[in-house]
């Protein structure tokens, strides 16, 4: 989605796109090549940036995805909201890690570790 197109969308609509992109990431997560996953990652990051740039930091709409049925959606939402809801986001990452649902469980665990190590500093 182009930036111009994104700026015409409501935050709620962007949240829906965000969930859709995350589900598509889950669909290609077992590909031997990461090309499609990483392309979707860039689209996901662009939505996060757009939401962050809006008045009041509209990344808060992603909190609505915390109980989405798809684990990749929840994982992405948790990481994207670490800066605005750190305690809740960490709780969700912990829950994903403990679920054993791989590879998201591993990624959630690594995310918590990078936070503790100071490698990841959410902004």
């Amino acid at each position, binding site marked *: 989605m182009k930036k111009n197109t994104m700026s015409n969308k409501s935050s709620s609509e962007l949240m829906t796109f965000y969930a859709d992109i995350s589900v598509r990431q889950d669909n290609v*997560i*077992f*590909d*031997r090549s*990461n090309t499609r*996953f*990483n392309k979707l*990652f*860039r689209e996901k*990051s662009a939505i996060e940036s757009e939401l962050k740039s809006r008045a009041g930091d509209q990344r808060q709409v992603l909190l609505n995805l915390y109980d989405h*049925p*798809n*684990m990749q959606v929840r994982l992405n939402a948790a*990481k*994207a909201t670490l800066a605005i809801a750190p305690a809740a986001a960490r709780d969700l990452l912990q829950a994903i*890690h403990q*679920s*054993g*649902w*791989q*590879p998201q*469980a*591993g*990624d*959630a*665990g*690594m*995310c918590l*570790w*990078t*936070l503790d190590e100071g*490698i*990841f500093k*959410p902004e």
Partner: protein
Amino acid sequence: MVSRSEYSELTLRLASMKSQFAAASFWLRASLLRELITKAGFRADQPRIPAGHSDGGQWTADPDGSMSRPILPAGDNPDLEPNIPDKRPETASERNTLAQRFARYWFNQPQGLAVRTLLRTAWLLNDAGDAIQAFFDGPRSLEELQDAVSDPRRGYDIHHIVEQGSAREDGFSNTEINGAGNLVRIPRYRHWQINGWFGKSNASFGELSPRQYLRGKSWSERYRVGLMALRMHGVLR
């Protein structure tokens, strides 16, 4: 020059070897299935729903209401239950993806469900039974994983804790890369998942992939991340 009779004998011997191989292969598959059934806690005397009901033949609870094995929390997304085709997919890529999805799903389900699906889809058991079984391994100590390198097994791969490709490109020696301290034997699908994780863009590493993030870093930093990845992906205790 091989005579006609020698050729006939060789043909017969080859047919015999093929037959023995098929028998051994069948025996191995049957053993694997039996092990999975045992792990699932199936009992021959477990009650079933009587014929004539819509669920006739399905396993049901014992009269006191208990099941032979506690029912674990169901997958938190019913839509995630993979639809496994009866017919073997044509490409290895499709088969590998399906097998990994099922291994992941079954890991969070009562294993009886896995056994039932395997009974229905022989191709999956035949193609991926060993790797699926290995996926159910619990976490092991680093020493156990390293010692297992000398005992290669089906369904497992030798994994480099510090990734070999980028380490080589960054000038680390073969002695370091293929040294005993850097090698572990781990379940194949966990190996693929960890390798996949290293190559995926990740917010936790400044939107780089962990592989990109580690470029130019020291051996000890790479090793530290590699060990943590093993731990977080359920391989290392």
